[in-house]
């Protein structure tokens, strides 16, 4: 046992630059591949609903606005989203209609502002992936 075993380390830090990042004034770099908020590319969506089915948090809602015109509305509830990225993995189109960006500073004072929605016409692009609704776990994000 040694009295004041921590002393050298403490004194060293006293004269060292603190480890602190001055956050709101200086942003921390998020690593590549950070999972932030999900987004939809309406031009690519074929409304296969794979994302809606696989979303663990009920954050994606797809409703038909006008069935005849093939107009659909997709709502992403950012207040429910758990940022797992499963929607991107489940998306069968190439390139993917769902993508996830590294945005995470979206704090707000109302949950209503955390919805994002798109009204769009279903894309007719044939998916290049083998089947429109493959296994929920496509290898490699």
């Amino acid at each position, binding site marked *: 046992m040694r009295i004041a075993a921590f002393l050298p380390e403490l004194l060293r830090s006293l004269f060292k630059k*603190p*480890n*602190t*990042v*001055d*956050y*709101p004034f200086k*942003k*921390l770099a998020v690593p590549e591949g950070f999972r932030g*908020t999900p987004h939809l590319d309406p031009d690519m969506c074929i409304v296969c609903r794979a994302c809606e089915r696989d979303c*663990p*948090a*009920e*954050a994606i809602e797809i409703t038909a606005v006008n069935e005849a015109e093939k107009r659909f509305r997709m709502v992403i*509830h*950012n*207040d*429910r*989203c*758990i*940022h*797992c990225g499963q929607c991107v993995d489940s998306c069968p189109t190439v390139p993917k209609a769902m993508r996830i960006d590294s945005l*995470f*500073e*979206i*704090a*707000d*004072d*109302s*949950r209503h502002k*955390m919805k994002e929605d798109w009204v769009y016409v279903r894309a007719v692009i044939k998916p290049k992936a083998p089947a429109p609704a493959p296994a929920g776990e496509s290898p490699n994000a």
Partner: protein
Amino acid sequence: MLKKLARWSRIKSPWILHLNSGACNACDIEIVAALTPRFDVERFGILLKATPRHADVLVASGPVTRQMRDRIIRIYEQTPDPKFVIAVGACAMSGCVYRGAYNILGGLDQVIPVNMYVPGCPARPDAIVDGVVKLLGKL
């Protein structure tokens, strides 16, 4: 003048109480991580307080469980005015993956008023700091 001074002091010295209403721990460790050297929220005068009597801002995480409901209300009432509530993480906002579970009442705003929502699962410490800063900016 006095009001201005009080407002200034409120912005400069928000003491927080960490309130867990049934969270999975992830947001909690990120809240604690915000206190540690890398993010060090004491820069803004934020101190983690032990009792609701000393706190100004309740930083809450987790969906509200049936058993915690009354306790949350009690803690909210024990906090002296003016008080603010920050809901950290998807669970505290809406219940996220536990939506529809029998012992969950939903997000925190089903029980007490919430002033700021910080999304994330869990919210990164920087997102939490961002949420606090946004809240202070609104005062």
